[in-house]
């Protein structure tokens, strides 16, 4: 589990290096969103199936996310650390789902 970033204001006056280090840590620990976008060919049943297969979601949750993609044009299907987000995005693209990654700000 990533360590929570510490507030850097306290260190800033005492040691500029500490400020730099803390900023970097903050950047790397921000979570990433895995976003699936609607497209003209993928079947709704297939999208649900892929969410179940890739994330291990139950059918109800997978179908709800699929409906959000279908109706809203996109859905955040997973949020978490970068490495895992990249892995999921790769898996979803391998199943031909239009997938992007967004850093949570």
């Amino acid at each position: 589990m990533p360590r929570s970033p510490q507030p850097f204001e306290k260190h800033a006056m005492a040691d500029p290096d500490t400020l730099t280090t803390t900023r970097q840590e903050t950047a790397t620990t921000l979570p990433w969103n895995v976003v699936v976008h609607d497209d003209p060919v993928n079947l709704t049943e297939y999208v649900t199936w892929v969410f179940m297969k890739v994330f291990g979601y139950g059918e109800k949750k997978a179908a709800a996310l699929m409906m959000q993609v279908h109706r809203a044009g996109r859905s955040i299907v997973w949020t978490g650390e970068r490495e895992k987000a990249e892995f999921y995005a790769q898996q979803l693209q391998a199943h031909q789902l239009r997938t992007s990654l967004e850093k949570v700000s």
Partner: protein
Amino acid sequence: MRIQQTLEGGLRIDVMDGGDWNVLGGIPHDALSADEPLAERLGALINHEALAEDWQEFIVPDLDEAFRSDVAHVAAAVAEAHSQAGGGEGPLWITRDDAMKWYSALNQARLAIEDRHRFGPEEDFDPARLTAESGAALLRSMLYLNLQKFLLAVVMR
């Protein structure tokens, strides 16, 4: 063409004549007709500066190879079955292990057709706009779609 489930959980397609073989041969042909490879199109969605370069360098080529391999697999399976049937009546088998490759190739074929002809959602579809070429493409796309539905419902579940 008749499609039925096998005891092993795959599909058997009973091809009736040369017309059916032409339709099946159209799958790889359509899939490879896309103006922009699917892997590149998907790769363009990963555009965050921290990720884009590595994604283009490492992931896109892998995806491209996998998608092309799926299409090649289907092309080879159709060619083999066509040859064994002497171009006439005969079976084409899709095993459970093959199902994802077939689904992938069919998806690529439908995407390429949709890109070229822009049929759009069913509710907005206007048959009066169809030309001979786009009408034939629509029929192929509908057949591919039904084959995908079979694969999903019978083999991949």
